[in-house]
């Protein structure tokens, strides 16, 4: 409104102005406007204020790549977007360097640490019992990460991928594929914390199946040639690769060496058949990674890791590499092929 617009009865002649209640009305309208504006302004303020820090630790770059490729999108879907409200730092290294890696990571004061592999989880646990840890490993109770699956109780929860637990089943699978071959080698990672559990499972299965099991330990990938030479010397007929992140990272090398040695191999993950192993049997890794991301999100939202049950795989998949089979001159029985979820040509 203009200064006097709208008030029709005007005074002429005298030219004086009649005082009006104009000021009051204007103030009232202003008050109403303010009342309307306040909630709008409040709504306009964005609540996203803090940035969460996630530290990812692994023994191999392959694990980190898988984490980046499969978990960050899932975290983003759950509302934690890297670069916007999530800062991700990734580190990897062999066992010897892991303590230093953990120290480095802890210096960043992360909100949650994600570990792949029991070795690095141990390294973290030895340095902090307060920073929440989501692990992607195996046998949490046997390793001392948690009191029980339903209630871990400490600062560690995560996904148990049944690595060593399934090594017996893998031996069974290998036997199903190659019923004639009785002398079987197992490639073990000497430093793996769950090596004893794996060996126990393998020996139990070998006993049940009546197989001769020979264990070949390596300290790192550098020991592969020697190990394979030893296998040749021992005249083993098939190879079971122990389930451990280190060997997951070395899958292509292992597969090549195995093929050169003429050894049909079963590895930890179905995907490893794609890298050249004859068979790969394990949980559905994508599903487990999604579950891990979910657990990270729960912790970031404030849940206490000690109260989040450790999750276990529900789906398993078998990968078969037909090219490797052909290269080794093998024909796999139908019962094995019937179980195959992924077939690589």
């Amino acid at each position: 409104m203009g200064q006097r617009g709208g008030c029709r009865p005007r005074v002429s002649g005298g030219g004086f102005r009649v005082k009006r209640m104009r000021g009051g009305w204007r103030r009232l309208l202003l008050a109403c406007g303010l009342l309307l504006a306040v909630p709008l302004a409040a709504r306009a303020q964005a609540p996203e204020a803090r940035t969460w820090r996630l530290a990812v630790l692994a023994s191999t770059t392959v694990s980190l790549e898988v984490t980046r490729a499969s978990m960050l999108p899932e975290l983003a879907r759950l509302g934690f977007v890297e670069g916007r409200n999530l800062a991700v730092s990734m580190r990897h290294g062999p066992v010897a360097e892991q303590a230093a890696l953990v120290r480095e990571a802890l210096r960043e004061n992360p909100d949650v640490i994600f570990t792949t592999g029991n070795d690095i989880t141990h390294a973290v646990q030895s340095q902090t019992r307060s920073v929440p840890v989501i692990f992607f490993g195996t046998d949490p109770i046997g390793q001392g990460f948690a009191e029980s699956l339903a209630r871990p109780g400490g600062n560690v929860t995560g996904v148990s991928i049944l690595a060593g637990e399934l090594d017996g089943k893998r031996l069974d699978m290998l036997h199903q594929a190659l019923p004639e071959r009785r002398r079987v080698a197992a490639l073990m990672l000497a430093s793996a914390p769950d090596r004893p559990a794996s060996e126990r499972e393998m020996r139990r299965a070998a006993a049940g199946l009546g197989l001769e099991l020979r264990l070949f330990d390596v300290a790192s990938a550098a020991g592969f040639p020697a190990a394979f030479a030893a296998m040749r010397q021992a005249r083993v007929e098939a190879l079971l690769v122990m389930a451990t992140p280190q060997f997951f990272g070395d899958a292509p090398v292992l597969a090549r060496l195995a093929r050169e040695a003429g050894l049909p191999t079963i590895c930890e993950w179905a995907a490893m058949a794609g890298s050249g192993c004859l068979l790969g049997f394990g949980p559905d890794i994508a599903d487990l990674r999604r579950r891990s991301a979910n657990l990270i999100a729960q912790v970031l939202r404030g849940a206490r890791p000690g109260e989040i049950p450790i999750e276990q795989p529900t789906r398993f998949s078998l990968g078969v590499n037909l090219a490797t089979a052909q290269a080794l001159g093998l024909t796999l029985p139908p019962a094995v092929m019937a179980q195959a979820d992924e077939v690589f040509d």
Partner: protein
Amino acid sequence: MPHALPPRALAVPLTPRPRLLRLALPALAGLLPAGLARRFGLAMVGLVSVLLVGTGAVNMWVTYAEATAGAVQVQREKAQAAAERVAQFVEGIESQVGWTTRAEWARVSPEQRRYDFIRLQRQVPAITDLQYIDGNGREQLRLSRLEPDVVGSGQDFSGEPLFARAVAERSWRGPVYFRRGSEPYMTLALAHVGRMPGVTAASVNLKLIWDVVTAIRIGRAGYAYVTDAAGRLVAHPDMSLVLRETDLSRLPQVARAIANGDATPTTVQGPDGRRVLSAHAVIPQLGWIVFVELPRREVLAPVWASLVQTLVLLGLGVLLALLLGGWLARRMVGPIRQLQAGAQRLGEGDLSQRISLDSRDEIGALARRFNDMAGRIQEAQETLEAKVASRTRALAQSLDDLRLAQDRLVQTEKLASLGQLTAGIAHEIKNPLNFVNNFAELSAELVQELEEALAAAGEAVPEALREEVAELAGMLRGNLEKVVQHGKRADSIVRNMLAHSREGGGERREMALNPLVEEAMALAWHGARAEKPGLNVTLEKELDPDIGTLPLFPQEFTRVLLNLVGNAIYATGKRAQRGEAGYAPVVRVETRAEGDAVAVTVRDNGTGIPEAMRNRIFEPFFTTKPAGEGTGLGLSLSHDIVVKQHGGAFLVDSQEGVFTEFRVLLPRVAPEKEA
């Protein structure tokens, strides 16, 4: 209008509620304009508020009832549907497992059986382990996703419920159990067809129901979960709750469902502590209970929406009412204030004050009355003022007249006394002067006679003596002539003085001016010629024939004219004496009628009057003429005659060495005083 916030209201801390309210209410009222507008606004607000609150309350109650009833109905149906889907999940597994219970399955080769089991495992991801137990209760085949397969273990299961119950009841669904205290599992056992039936037992990972449970959509934030008959959680969208082996039997809705199966939805606390509308349905085959819960907030969302709508409407209504009330009040208050202000201005004396209100209502009528009244007052005032002004003018006029009369009177008195004095003096001087003059003339005649006698004596008187006497007689006669001349001058002065004394003595009468002027000019010219025979001056006259007569004292006025023309001729003569080349002395006399007056102008191109003297020329005895040529009384006398006697005006204009112009203005009508 004083409705600013009281300053105290801003300074007081806002924590105590009643105090806040006590302060807020006046502040709020202060927001409203004062006076009628507030009353109208409040009345409108009250009316609108009552209406809107009333309808809003009814509307809300109806919405609440509908929303609750509808939600209860919907929840019950959702619970039923959810129960069916969970049942379907289990039945689906059963029907898949049932595929291995054909009668001939007992006779197929172990490899085929194993192959069938592998296919079954592939078909149903939820099955972790599969067992075949033959008709004797011995385990023949066990497939596991986690363990090495076992063929022909021969383990005795005949006493186990999974065999005994399955054989007895064709199928058996085991209780929910948690593997390693975390994963929920259930055993399904189906008896084969035929005599001595074997049993296929499957361990089902119930985590897979999660897919079913999360797929059940309950409103926006609603959810479904499943417990077993004991209230232990079997499936929940939050997997962690299931893995933790949560016992929900203490939740009221779960307890109620376990106790009596009353399926009426109620509002309770959900597992996460929020208030929810909970409904449940039992899966009879399993004894499980499916709960469907919808946050109460969501149930009441339409009620809240309705409330918000009502409040917004209320707010808008109140605002509208305020504006409407204010508008109405302004329509009324504005004119009233105009009236008030108009009356105030009128009271302060502005009588031109009018109120322009074109409304046809009572206020308009009041305004018109007011304007009428103001008009009358103004009229009366103006009449009064006009009368006062005219009286004042008349009074001023009278005062002027009085002053004039007084001046004249004083002048007359003065002249009278002066006249008496001069007359006295003149009279006393006149007689001796007559003697001087007469005897001088007589002596001149005697000198004449002496010269004649001398001439008659002839040779009797010696030549030398005779010449000496003749010379003495001539000198004597010259002296006598001078005596006569100056005697006549003195006589003239005396006559003038006597004329002063005679002033006013003449009679004023209507006279034609022009003849008077002509006569005076002629007289003056002859007079001048008489004094100075070689006089060379051109007299011009331009007499307005329309002048006619005017009241004059002819004798006195003639003296004025004579004086002026005489002075003019004298001035031209003076200038002529300087011997300027080509100088033509001119004296011009004009008469002209100028409205109520008549102007007589006498202009000469003589020596002019110096600026410094111009103010003094009307003073008595002031003259520029050399001693003996003027008395200094001429202009003084003329001024008195024109101004005081005739009530006219005497103006002079001159430029030294160029011209002098005297202008006499005579009124056509004689001043009353004179009449």
